[in-house]
């Protein structure tokens, strides 16, 4: 593993078991299937997919909030795939999470101060005075004057302010990797920009790697160097942001592009060309390419799971017929 590589994911799968009936068979929801990628230190990647694509599950599996079903996760050279909770304490310190719901992700009965103090207490960091300094510094970094905000309760803050606290909390332990799961989806449009900018600034300043999970492809340009597109549990395309936005190659990515409207009054005058149907059920999904039922370019070859092909350097497409 190269010096700059922080995270390596190989053939990672996460399946959830579902029992149907008392004597019934056990089915598996193949939420994440055979995912591979690498992440450099200090790199920000957007993981784009719709709900049900497995992006959240992938993020949580990488954080080891779930046990991987198959495959490997290597963090900073160490194989964390099968470690048990006791052995993962150091890993918890190296990683952080920012969640989607600003109102649910902060303990409502803690003050902002306590919310930020908890990670430090859990890892026994600093004396009371040192912690206070760190917390105050963190609040300042995210643009919340500590004198005003430290002893308020979450219900007194707006969504944007709460997400700032969530970002501060994720950074309290100086992590190397943060998983941000749709951090701005529940915020008003005018607030999203601020929060994304803040997050991006802090990510650059502290050289953290971030996996930014989102369903909104339009925001990726403002946040990340790379984009991963996820569909039905697979990563179907990986490329640098500019490259992806200029030359999408996977049929699903192309469908996404044609589906997303920009503000343009001409839109109402024409229909959008989008594939019909919905993503497949992930309980015993179709073998082979999971986009096949909706793909205008599919052939019988697509019954076999396509490999990841590097079309141009750094631009990987999981398709038999990349465009």
């Amino acid at each position, binding site marked *: 593993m190269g010096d700059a590589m922080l995270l390596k994911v190989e053939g990672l799968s996460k399946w959830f078991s579902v029992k149907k009936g008392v004597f019934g068979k056990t089915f598996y929801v193949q939420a994440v299937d055979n995912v591979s990628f690498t992440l450099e230190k200090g790199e920000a990647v957007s993981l784009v997919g719709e709900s049900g694509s497995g992006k959240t599950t992938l993020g949580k599996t990488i954080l080891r909030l779930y046990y991987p079903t198959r495959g490997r996760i290597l963090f900073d050279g160490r194989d964390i795939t099968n470690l048990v909770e006791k052995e993962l304490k150091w890993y918890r310190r190296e990683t952080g999470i920012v969640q*989607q719901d600003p109102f649910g992700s902060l303990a409502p*009965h803690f003050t902002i101060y306590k919310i930020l103090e908890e990670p430090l207490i859990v890892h026994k960091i600093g004396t009371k005075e040192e912690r206070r300094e760190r917390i105050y510094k963190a609040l300042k970094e995210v643009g919340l004057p500590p004198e005003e905000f430290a002893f308020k309760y979450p219900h007194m803050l707006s969504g944007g302010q709460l997400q700032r606290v969530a970002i501060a909390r994720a950074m309290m332990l100086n992590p190397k990797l943060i998983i941000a799961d749709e951090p701005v989806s529940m915020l008003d449009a005018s607030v999203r920009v601020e929060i994304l900018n803040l997050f991006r600034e802090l990510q650059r300043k502290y050289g953290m790697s971030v996996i930014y999970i989102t369903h909104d492809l339009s925001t990726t340009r403002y946040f990340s160097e790379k984009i991963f597109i996820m569909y039905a549990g697979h990563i179907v395309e990986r490329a640098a942001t500019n490259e992806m936005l200029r030359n999408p190659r996977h049929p699903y990515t192309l469908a996404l592009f044609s589906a997303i409207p920009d503000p343009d009054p001409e839109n109402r005058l024409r229909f959008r060309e989008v594939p019909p149907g919905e993503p497949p059920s992930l309980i015993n999904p179709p073998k082979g390419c999971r986009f096949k039922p909706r793909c205008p370019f599919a052939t019988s070859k697509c019954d076999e799971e396509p490999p990841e092909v590097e079309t141009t350097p750094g631009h990987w497409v999981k398709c038999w017929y990349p465009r």
Partner: protein
Amino acid sequence: MSVEEYSLRGILRELLSYKSAVIGIVILIFLVGLSLFSILATPYSQAGEIWNDKNKWIKYPRNALPEWYNYFSDKKLPPNIVLGAHAAERSIENGFVKLIYYDKFNYNYDDFPSEIIIFTNTTYFNESPVLRAYLIKPSGEMLSLGDYSPRNGTDSIYITNNIILEANLTDYVIRKIGEKPSYVITIPIALFMKYSKNLEVMKGNYTFKIEVLLNNVSDSFEYQTIVYGKVYGLAGTDMDRRPLDLGILWGAPLALAFGVVASFSITFIQLIFAAISGYYGGKIDSIIQRLSEIYMILPFLPFLIMVSLLYGLNLWNLLLLVIVLSIFGTSVKTYRVWVMQLKSSPYVEAAMAYGASNLRIIFLYIIPRLIPPMVPSLVLAIPSYVFLEAALALLGLSDPKAVSWGRIVEEAFDAGAAYKGYYHWILMPSMMLILTAISFALIGLALDRIVNPRLREA
């Protein structure tokens, strides 16, 4: 389960805006004050002994009504009148030391005393002194109450039990009225009556005269006369002369302690079991759930009765038994669901992501969220445990060494208080039980309205 301003402080503030809750709190403060007074200002640790010791109450009237009864009745009942400790006229007569005591008292009541007893304390060496008692009525008549020889040491002379005196006075009364009256003549009636066909009290100044003849100069004599009334204290007395206000006072801390300790311990233990069950899931969850189902099927009260019957429990063992029989009750299932819901909240997930331990999450992140919605049922459960103890006492199964309101009611029923008209004996402790229930009910229901937004008016 949304959380708005669910801090305990916020709830308290809002509680005070409900009038019903304020009333409940006022009553509660009164009860707590009563309990504190009871524990601090009376020999509470020996309360049971004192209560059960019949001899301690000899100077109290039997079955007396509360003194405030007189405010509501035209017929004024007499209180206890205690006489004695006056200086004697001392003289020597025929070699005997003669002591004459005069006790004056005013009697303006519409009913007759229940008893008259002279308590003597005398020491003598050879022969006992001779005591003669007289009652001088407002009319000037002096009625003899008999001759008595008090024993050495302490003795009590039951004037009103003197059958011969009764016969004599009856004749006297019949002569004075001129015919045999329709009512039965007892000693108190005879001593205090106006001689007329209707039963009427002769009101005015009475004097009690006691003549004592001591044999030796070195003999000593002390006495106290009590003209027993029909009203006493704030709550009257029972058949064993015990003042019910003291009984109620002593019962207060017990009732509150039993109810509060039972409710709090059961609720919190249930919460902990529910938290372990809901958080860890798997086998431990199954075991706890099966246990709680068994508990739901167990008939609680019959079981309790059976054990009490077989083992004659003291109060704290009873409390412990109640707790043990309740800890896996139905609330465990309810709280478990809340725990499971909270476990899947984003903030718990975030805590796992920064490495908080399971115990930390359970006790710092989950359980504090459960306390506000739990508080109403906690408060509302208190009176049910108070009543449980009273119910067991009523069945004769409570601790005979403890003074509890339930026990007082039990003794009242046992003595047939309802048939005999001693309603105050039943009502006073019952009212305290109801008052306690009302207090916690008002507070608990207001809390329920605050914590459960669906019950609120918009």
